[in-house]
């Protein structure tokens, strides 16, 4: 099981801040996970936007990175505090 976190405006689009699920076997990379989630939530490409970065177990990774064995995957729109 993998915990997926939807930060910032993504929680409004998906209707949840997080969920725990089993990633389908045919999804190997973070990029494939994006596409699958975008179709699942019908977010019309919002999760494919390159400004949305992905972190696996608190490490920002590229779309080519493997999601295999990940405990926690975060989808992170542009950040900023202050």
């Amino acid at each position, binding site marked *: 099981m993998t915990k997926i976190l939807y930060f910032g405006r993504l929680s409004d689009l998906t209707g949840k801040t997080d969920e725990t699920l089993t990633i389908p076997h045919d999804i190997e990379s973070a990029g494939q996970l994006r596409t699958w989630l975008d179709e699942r939530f019908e977010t019309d490409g919002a999760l494919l936007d390159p400004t949305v970065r992905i972190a696996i177990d*608190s490490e920002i990774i590229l779309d080519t990175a493997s999601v295999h064995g990940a405990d926690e995957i975060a989808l*992170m729109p542009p950040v900023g505090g*202050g």
Partner: protein
Amino acid sequence: MLLVSSDPIDAAAELRAFEAMALQAGGIVTFSGQVREAAASGQVTSLYLQAYSPMTENGIQAAITEANARWDLEQTRVVHRTGAMQPGETIVFVATAAKHRRAAFEAADFLMDYLKTEAVFWKKEDTETGSNWIEPRAADYSDANRWTKKEDA
């Protein structure tokens, strides 16, 4: 020294505590960011700050380390609030202390640019007309880029 917390920030008390820790310094610069009362979409009713621990803390800590590498600082302090807050409340407090003022001014500026554009926070503003997630403005990114350009020059 870094603190990310949902507790209210008392900037005046933070400054007094910081002064007591920075007795070797000749100059102290502080910056407080507060929740503004009015946004483009109307009167602000509340602001919500979301963090992702420990990524948020690790990133700010790395920026503090970077500031110490670039400037000769005696002390630094960053306090950042999370959760829900009201107009007028302090969101962020940054203090830098150095032997001479220039290092303190520049390091505080550098840390604030990091906090505005790279620190792992998401910010939602509730106004009388609805809610908006606030992302950095183009000006915030160009401010932050000043430090990269300087390094490349």
